[in-house]
């Protein structure tokens, strides 16, 4: 299982530019998706446009999980700044968390139109199910989730 780097959704770049998506926010969430999902389609705009999220069961909530401690700190060099957060994890309880393939980070909002998707990553080449009693941790790189260079 090797994950691919986070990719920023096309429209997220525009939204960052016009400040409709604030990377200073601390209400980001991360959700998991199956191989049948469109999570890798970079033209998506909002969370509502994503399909085939991992089914809510056994320790996975369909709205994903809140990221914690989002922060901007200096990156690999003094010229770079990185957006980072704590590593989220899910524990499979009472059964498997099934069909895990990719992840999307999005911003939480009261309105569906405000739930902008930020970035996406394929977590594995082979879709998998996490058996009960085990934990899946999405490990953010020490260099961050995203870097501004």
């Amino acid at each position: 299982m090797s994950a691919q780097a986070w990719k920023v959704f096309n429209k997220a770049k525009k939204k960052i530019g016009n400040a409709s998506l604030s990377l200073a926010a601390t209400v980001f969430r991360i959700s998991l998706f199956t191989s049948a999902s469109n999570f890798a389609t970079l033209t998506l705009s909002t969370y509502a446009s994503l399909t085939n999220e991992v089914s809510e069961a056994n320790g996975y909530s369909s709205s994903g999980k809140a990221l914690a401690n989002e922060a901007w700190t200096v990156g690999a060099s003094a010229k770079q700044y990185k957006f980072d957060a704590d590593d989220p994890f899910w524990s499979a309880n009472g059964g498997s968390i099934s069909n895990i393939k990719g992840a999307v980070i999005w911003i939480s909002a009261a309105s569906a139109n405000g739930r902008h998707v930020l970035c996406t990553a394929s977590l594995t080449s082979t879709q998998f199910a996490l058996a009960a009693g085990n934990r899946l941790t999405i490990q953010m790189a020490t260099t961050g989730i995203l870097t501004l260079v």
Partner: protein
Amino acid sequence: MKFVIRLMSDDDRLMGWAEVHASAQSNTEMSRAEFRAPNDQTRFRIDAPGTATYITVHWTDFDVRRKANMVAALVVPPEAVGKEAIYAWIEPLWCVNGQKIDVLPPVTVGSNQSILVPLGVIGAVPGQPGG
């Protein structure tokens, strides 16, 4: 993977050879992995004159071989010995065929998983990171 390519004459003599290192590229539509020569070319040093009509591909890691007939015979005069010839491949060095299976059920992992997701980038020209 290492392949030894031999340029062979119509009377089965070795006219030149080259060592090629190739890695497989997935061809999902064709359900196969293809080993291609870098830039789809192989450079030979001509060791003997003759009429080259075929090439052999020897996958040395597994000691398996195959023969590829050249589209057109190549006549190499004696004065070309020691010079370089370039062979342009119209096919992969080797193909490993699979089967098209539409349904691949997920595997179940029975241990804790920690998946490192590499850093993403905002604001870099591809291949030219700033900073």
